[in-house]
């Protein structure tokens, strides 16, 4: 038995394995954990986005440019984009792993999803930076 946070756990892993956070699968813990960390970050960021979305979806070109040029808006949007694209990719991977069983289709879809969301995320970040610095 080991003690942690005042709770008693059955000792089923070595202290090193425990410190590394690796279960029997050897990987995946980080995936699960980052889904939660990004979710936590997305709570305030999504509320912020809900209030600001009209500045991108319905505003005029001049209004939207002005909004995006505000440093606080740009920085908060960049933080949202980072957390949301990361969280979305992790979430889609879980869904694909659950439903796609074909030995060819699964890795192909996982790789395609990764390329798509990394690509779209970098494009969105690039666009925000371009508006602010070009």
């Amino acid at each position, binding site marked *: 038995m080991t003690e942690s946070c005042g709770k008693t756990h059955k000792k089923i892993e070595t202290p090193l394995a425990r410190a590394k956070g690796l279960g029997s699968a050897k990987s995946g813990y980080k995936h699960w954990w980052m889904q939660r960390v990004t979710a936590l970050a997305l*709570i305030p960021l999504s509320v912020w986005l809900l209030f600001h979305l009209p500045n991108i979806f319905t505003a005029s070109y001049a209004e939207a440019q002005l909004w*995006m040029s505000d440093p606080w808006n740009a920085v908060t949007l960049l933080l949202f984009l980072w957390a949301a694209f990361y969280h979305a990719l992790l*979430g889609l991977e879980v869904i694909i792993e659950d439903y796609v069983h074909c030995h060819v289709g699964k890795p192909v879809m996982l790789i395609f999803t990764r390329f798509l969301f990394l690509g779209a995320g970098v494009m969105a970040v690039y666009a925000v930076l371009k508006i602010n610095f070009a």
Partner: protein
Amino acid sequence: MKQRPLSPHLQVYRPQITSVLSILHRITGAGLTGGLLLLGWGIWSLSHSAEAYQCFTECMAHPLGKLVTIGFIWALCYHLLNGIRHLFWDAGLGFKMAAVNASGWVTVIASFVLTAVFACLYFY
């Protein structure tokens, strides 16, 4: 793979608030990834040119675009509120059936109320 008989699965169960909200979390999560790509298109068009951005906002002003926008707002409100439930569960809290049912109904009702509020904010 060899086809073996399967035991009865989800379809034999009566829908319950727990199971329905659970699958809705997944559906809204998947839908939101599409919304994220849409947001990316909007930001990209804004950085590209006035014409490209106008093309984007005209799509969003179309009745279908408005429907997508309202769907995005609802999906985000629902997934956000239900995500908070998930995080409480991950922390080991709120597992009593009464708490699960109560937080579930609060999530459903609040998601619709918030969607109505934000839809008014966006379009009026």
